[in-house]
């Protein structure tokens, strides 16, 4: 191979072929390669350590034990306890609010509740009233209170005075 390369050189660059290849004149600092190896190892080493830390565990049980130990560290345990306390406090508060609302209704007697509903009928829709247990018979008194006979007679007198025909009257009623 070297002979072939020498011939190639002689044929294409005779002046260059006559020159010595070495010394090239390049120099390097003392212990350069030893230091380069050490410096480079410092840069490569951390990556190797990371690989070691994430090495596969021997079994799932070891993994579970490691995780439990990790959770039982004082700092982790404190954090977990705080979260649990917050959850319990939140649950109790929510339950208490709901209980208070129920208690308000529980303090009223059935008659008091009915009285309240009848006095504020326009605040309830039909479904709510049925849900609360008010049937048609419960409002008979109300209708009676709203349309007393005297009122009807007066209304008819008024209509006659104004000459309202029967069809128009049906529309009003």
């Amino acid at each position, binding site marked *: *191979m*070297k002979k072939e*390369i020498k011939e*190639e*050189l002689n044929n*294409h*660059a*005779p*002046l*260059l072929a006559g*020159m*010595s*290849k070495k*010394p*090239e*004149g*390049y*120099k*390097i*600092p003392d212990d350069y*390669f030893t230091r*380069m*190896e050490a*410096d*480079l*190892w410092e*840069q*490569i080493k951390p*990556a*190797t350590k990371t*690989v*070691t830390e994430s*090495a596969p565990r021997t079994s799932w049980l070891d993994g579970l034990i490691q995780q439990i130990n990790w959770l039982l560290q004082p700092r982790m345990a404190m954090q977990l306890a705080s979260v649990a306390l917050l959850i319990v406090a939140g649950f109790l508060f929510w339950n208490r609010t709901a209980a208070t609302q129920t208690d308000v209704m529980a303090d009223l007697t059935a008659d008091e509740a009915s009285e309240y509903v009848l006095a504020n009928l326009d605040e309830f829709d039909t479904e709510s009233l049925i849900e609360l247990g008010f049937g048609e018979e419960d409002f008979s008194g109300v209708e009676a209170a709203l349309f007393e006979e005297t009122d009807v007679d007066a209304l008819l007198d008024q209509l006659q005075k104004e000459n309202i025909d029967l069809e128009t009257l049906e529309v009003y009623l």
Partner: protein
Amino acid sequence: MAEKPSITDEQILSLLEKEASYEQGFKALMGAYQERLYWHVRRMVDNHEDANDVIQNVLIKVFRNIKNFKGDSKLYTWLYRIATNESITFLKKRNKKATNSLDDELSTVAHQLTADTYFDPEEAQLKLKAAIATLPEKQKAVFNLRYYEDMPYSEMANILDTTVGALKASYHHALKKVEHYLKNVEHNSL
């Protein structure tokens, strides 16, 4: 070409595969190749400080990617390919910077060579280095691998990812350019 390392590439790779022997593998690879790679890079960039930067990058890339090395080519070829590519990339950046600063190309080469405190050549070597520095980056790699490392074209083809024919043409062309430069310099100095 440089002497073959006493430990084989397969042994080095095997050591680097296991965490327990990784450090040993690292040292084996460094012992076998760091000097050869450094001198290859140094001949490409000439200046020691630049060569130091490039070789550090090369070796970091090597160790970060060694697990991806499939063994389709020789380890030696793979290492040289990385070193050559890094050197060419570096030279392109450096040359672009020099061109942008509107320096005269030859004075830049001369400046780069003489500014290096770790370069103390004889006159003939200084002329030769100046001649080589005028070659385009890839042709410089071809010239250095063949002229200084006596590398067969087949190995160079693997490193530079090109054909043997193209490499022969490139090397012969480089020889003529260098020869022409040396003749001119000699003529001018007479």
